[in-house]
């Protein structure tokens, strides 16, 4: 199944802290590791609820931000693959 038809879902154990400047921090208590997220990544993280496909997330991003690049799908796939590798996100099948 294509990645953009899947429903990514954030690991519920991971703590997400949104900062006052729209950047954010993720904390994985199991690994005792933290990760910084820029505002776009933070926006995407908030949509990882198992109800949005990546395609839908990009559409929401386009509504929210100007100048979303044409290769956004590729960026989001890479971002999600990285999160999956770290155990921070999983995928619900449609």
């Amino acid at each position, binding site marked *: 199944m294509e990645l953009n038809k899947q429903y990514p879902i954030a690991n519920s154990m991971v*703590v997400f*802290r949104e*900062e*006052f*400047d729209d*950047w954010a*921090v993720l*904390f994985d*208590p199991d690994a*005792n590791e*933290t*990760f*910084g997220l820029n505002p776009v990544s933070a926006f995407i993280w908030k949509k990882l609820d198992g109800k949005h496909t990546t395609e839908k997330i990009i559409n929401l991003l386009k509504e929210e931000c100007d100048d979303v690049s044409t290769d956004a799908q590729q960026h989001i796939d890479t971002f999600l693959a990285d999160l999956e590798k770290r155990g921070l996100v999983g995928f619900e099948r449609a």
Partner: protein
Amino acid sequence: MDRVQNNFCMILRDNLSATCKHDIENMLLEEWNSIYHVGYCNNLLPLLYYKLKTHKISVPSQIEITLRNDYLNYSGRDLKRKSQLLEMIKLFNDNGIEHILLKGSHLAEIVYTNSALRMMGDIDILVSHKDIEKAFNVLINEGYYDGSQPDGSNIVKDVYVHHYPVLYKDNLFPVELHRYLFENNDLKNIDLIWSRAQTVNIGGMASKVMELEDMLVYTALHGLKYHTQKLGVNFLYDLHAIIIQGNINWDIVAERIKDNDWGNSKTLYSALVMTKKYLNTNIPEFFLNVIRPVDYSQKIQAIIEELILCRKIHNQTAYTFSFYLFHALKKMSFKRIAGQALFSPEQISSKTRNRYNGWRIAALYFQSVMSIFTTFLKIIYQSFGVGDNDAKKAFSAGRKAGIFTHWLES
């Protein structure tokens, strides 16, 4: 106070005039680097970034990127700290251990609006006398280890009278379990502090913190009397943060600083005058007039200002030695110099993490005496106005702190 220090304090204030903002935004890159350095030395980088953002101050991009990265790192570190703290509160509650969160943990969780803004290096918890042994063992059973005795033997719990040996666990914050608030336990009101402590909800769990009025007086006393060498603008900001909570009852504070309770009007007055001056904190004038010590002078104020603004002291040995030397000379107490300078074998054991009855202690004791002797010679050398700047600065700060402490105790 130079322009950089002045602008740094202006940035930390809650309100900023258009003129000030304009002046800050017109600083040269070199001055911005100095602002960053002042923030670093005062453990205030996350707060500096937050204030710059909330005041909407334009910052050179390289400074902004550095500050943002620092902030995210501190915020991540704070999430780890919070997770550790919650685990500890759960352990204590499950085992019926009465505790009060002290210092940074209290300030970060209750006083600061965003816990990431209050940097800290360890977790301090006050535990009741009846529970402290149990609390220590509960943490040991959870994998914490006594840093003073890596092999687990000969645990010396009386070295630092006010807290048990620091507990460590890999990649976590060190933990200090306090049985008293200060090293020489010179407080008469420890039972009152326990009785006035308030129950708070931390992450869904019940814990306790000092009442805000107690916390204000404690913070002033802790900084100005017991940690003079670590004073900085962060000390003032802690007081500012407590006060802007808006719930301080100043009449109660005036009652609490009497001799039968905290008994420290001098430290509180000195600290509040500085906080008002540098951070424009709203402290009622009537209250300051009520608690103003009769012998408070411009000279004392200048000394406190120097101590707060001179961060960072690198040469702690020169500082500590000159501090005790001048303080003791003022009191004509040479016993005190010797007592502070010549550590007991138990103290050396704890500081160097060696067994206190091991053969190394004798050698370390000799080394300690020699180190004190050479420091003493160096101080005499410095007193003739020669030597490196850092030692001079440390020597001067130590001398001033000694004079100030003498004034506090007079």
